């Protein structure tokens, strides 16, 4: 499985860089991340709970950063396993300055095995991309919060806004659903369906405030229905 992409941040590289080395920040932005702790220099131990199609379970593993070039980027080695299979991957992250903005480029190649590979194959790329995009969106929000907090403290205000929580399971399901739509629908039909789906998911997220369990359940069904509907298109 190959992964590649870029994501823009409305923040200088120097603000972004330390956050990309901070396990607390990273654990917060990654959907399903239950723990990420430093076990050595540039070495982390993590627990990630994932659900890909019918396969779900916890992965445990080591994340090692190599070739760390502050503040330009680093390479990543991931070696994890769990009940649903194993993941072994290498990747790289580069930060490129672009005026006031910073572009984050990422690429990676992962070997996925076990039940995860055999049963979830069709959803694997989609899910991986959803995890990455939501992580980056989460990071974007944290960066904004950090920038606002810095601005606030400069103005002498003390009530810094709280960083946003990591995406919930329901939000993750919606993300996967959106990705699936992109994969299976012709572009001209996509917008209306995405709007419709996001509307539904938005309502679900409201409902979630009332009943967490209920919303999770429905969001997953929506994701499933989309997956089914998408294939027949």
């Amino acid at each position, binding site marked *: 499985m190959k992964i590649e992409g870029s994501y823009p941040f409305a923040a200088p590289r120097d603000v972004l860089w330390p956050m990309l080395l901070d396990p607390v920040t990273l654990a917060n932005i990654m959907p399903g991340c239950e723990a990420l702790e430093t076990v050595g220099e540039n070495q982390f131990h993590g627990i990630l709970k994932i659900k890909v199609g019918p396969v779900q379970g916890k992965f445990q593993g080591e994340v090692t950063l190599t070739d760390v070039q502050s503040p330009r980027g680093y390479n990543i080695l991931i070696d994890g396993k769990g009940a649903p299979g*194993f993941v072994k991957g290498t990747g790289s992250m580069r930060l490129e300055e672009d005026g006031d903005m910073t572009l984050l480029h990422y690429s990676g190649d992962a070997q996925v095995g076990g*039940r995860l*590979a055999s049963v979830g194959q069709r959803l694997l790329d989609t899910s991986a991309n959803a995890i990455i995009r939501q992580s980056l969106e989460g990071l974007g929000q944290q960066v904004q919060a950090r920038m606002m907090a810095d601005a606030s403290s400069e103005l002498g205000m003390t009530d810094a806004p709280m960083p946003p929580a990591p995406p919930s399971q329901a939000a993750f399901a919606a993300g996967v659903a959106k990705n699936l739509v992109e994969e299976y629908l012709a572009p001209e039909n996509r917008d209306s369906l995405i709007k419709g789906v996001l509307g539904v998911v938005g309502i679900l997220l409201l409902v979630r405030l009332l009943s967490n369990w209920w919303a999770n359940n429905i969001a997953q069904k929506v994701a499933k229905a989309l997956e089914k509907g998408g294939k027949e298109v």
Partner: protein
Amino acid sequence: MGSYIGKSMKRVEDPRFIQGKGRYVANLTLPGMAYLAIKRSPYAHAKINSIDTSAAEALDGVLGVFTGQDLLNDGVGALPCGWQVPNIKIPVQYALQVDKVRHVGDRVAIVVAESPYIAYDALDLIEVDYDPLPAAIGAKATMEAGVLVHDEIADNVSYTWEIGDMAARNKAFAEADHIVELDLINQRLIATAMEPRAAVAQWNEFTEEMTLWTTSQNPNLTRVVISAFTLQIPEHKLRLISPDVGGGFGSKIPHYPEEILVPWAARRLNRPVKWVSTRSEAAVSDTQGRDHVTKARLAIKNDGTVTGLDVNTWADNGAYLSIVAPLIPTAFYITLLSGLYKIPGIYGNMWGTLSNTVWVDAYRGAGRPEASYVVERLMDLAAQKLNMDPIEFRKKNLIPAEDFPYQTPVALQYDSGNYQGLFAEAEDLSNYAQLRADQAQARENGRLVGIGVAGCIEASGPAPSAVAGALGGVTGFWESGSIRVHATGKVTVLTGAHSHGQGHDTTFRQIVADQFGINPNDIDISHGDTAVITNGMGTYGSRSTSVGGSALVRSAEKVRGKMMKLAAHLLEADEADMAFDAATGNFHVKGSPDKAKSFGELAFAAYTAHNMPAGMEPGLEEDTYYDPANFTYPNSAHIAQVEIDKETGQITIQKYFAVDDVGNVINPMIVRGQVVGGIAQGVGQALWEGAQYDAGGQLVTGSLLDYTMPRADGFPMIQTSRTVTPSPHNPLGVKGVGEMGTIASTPTIVNAVMDALAPLGVKHIDMPLTAEKVYAAIHAANGGGH
């Protein structure tokens, strides 16, 4: 009573199937039953450093966690390979791996627990420490992988096989006007029977008897293997029961490790134990099918005569050799390369390779579809080369009807055939001339319409035991058939064949009813229980009616012979003056139908035994072991019309015509059902199905999300017809039917798609012909533009 043979009697087994009342292994629940689950390897190839079962053992409700070492300590033997071609290197396979895993899904440990849920939870608590190794993948590429699946087998080549007339081949190619070459891949398939495999075992500690319910196509054969090789439970203390089995397609022929693990655990824990495969487990543990890489050449003359065929094939067997795996790409493949044609110079050569994938064995057609695919693709390319109509080209090369029995250059002797009649019927049924006229019109309108033709042969009904032995078979391939007439005139039929969808309960009743002139409702067919059926070989290779049915005819003849003697005695007539009237079931004096004894009267007389002829024993039951004199050679001509959507590459099958010659037909409805089902399965390979392994050996099509099965909406109404050329060497004159549709439909559909793409200059696309591949071919042919 009239004649039942030839009538479309409704299947007596269907009421229970369609009402969900079938008796399947997974439905069986025994008091005190425990449940077994299997820890499988997530790696295609890895060294096992250690297995820590302590956390799993500590889980509440777990009765035991066992590894391969436990089985070795208990003296459990390796799984044998039952087809040993010369110089074969057979890799050792145990039910649970101890040192190394060799494919994703390979077995490393088992858990037995109070519930299946606890058992599955416990699997996740077993810690296996692996050292992953690079994987050897690909039927041909595995030879150069630089990685050995088994250290003792060099280049991952387990066996090689070649047959044919090399001098005639060399002459044909030296003198050919044209040589047509084709490199093709016959992709790997996953069998996907509707019922997953399952096993239940019960041990009786006092009698030391084991009963194993298992989803087998051949329980008697599997019992022999378990007794002689693996668990070594004495055969008279081991009972196998294969009740209703929901589809096999070859994947339920082999003796599986689970058939060792489940009874072993039942004995070890002294509890009944049950295991039912999940669909994902099936994808990584059931034997898979096909998987050939082939380079082939056809030598032709300008006048359209085919003079030579040269085939080199690399056949992937997976990580271990399953029970008859080496048979499939050898004696079931190369020997069929003559097809329906008179080709003097045929030579075939193959390499049986090993790879870090799930094992490969028989899959509906088993070797014969692969042969037909090679021949029929080449015939189409050759016709194209000479600008001849594909049917005209084939007709020019068909074996003439007067040449039968026909000896091919690749060992087989075809028993009977009328291939000209077969093609005439196919042209007639399809209105072939009109199809071609319509196609020309459609092409003028810029539509991609294709017509595909294939003429195929099968060697069915394995096999003459001496021939099987000479070709590498460890066992013979006779079949048993017993007829027990009860005192009240009812009949119990015992057959060593096994029904897992074929409709034996119906077909065999029709056969036996006609033998005695009795009502089929007075007959019961018993199969699949080794306590009732002493010996048998099971069902595969389209053999049940021609071999198993013939055994029943022979037993019926013996019973009738005894009844005739008894009737003559009771009527005080000379036996030579007696006759049997199959319409009434009466044994009577010739010319005096009133001087008769009915079937029922004679049955009763045989058991009261008050007045028997001198020297005749009471009772009325007879056994037969029928060893066929030859294979039977069903053949077919199929024609299909497809249209391709240029914008998407989507293929629609618009028309499908199938003419099959399966010899005499016992039940036309069942025959049509098997032909149509077979066609659907073969089209599945042509258009949709394909097991994909990635470079690391991960099966990436391990669920029905990714592995595309045929569905009813992919087919038009299939039109069938038949010609009847009876087999001369079995008493029923029947040939095999179960696999014919599958063998013929794959090349028919691929030829149709290639015919549609011919105006674009596309010569060949490897299966499955997905919309994506077809679209890419259209796109490339259009120079990358639209």
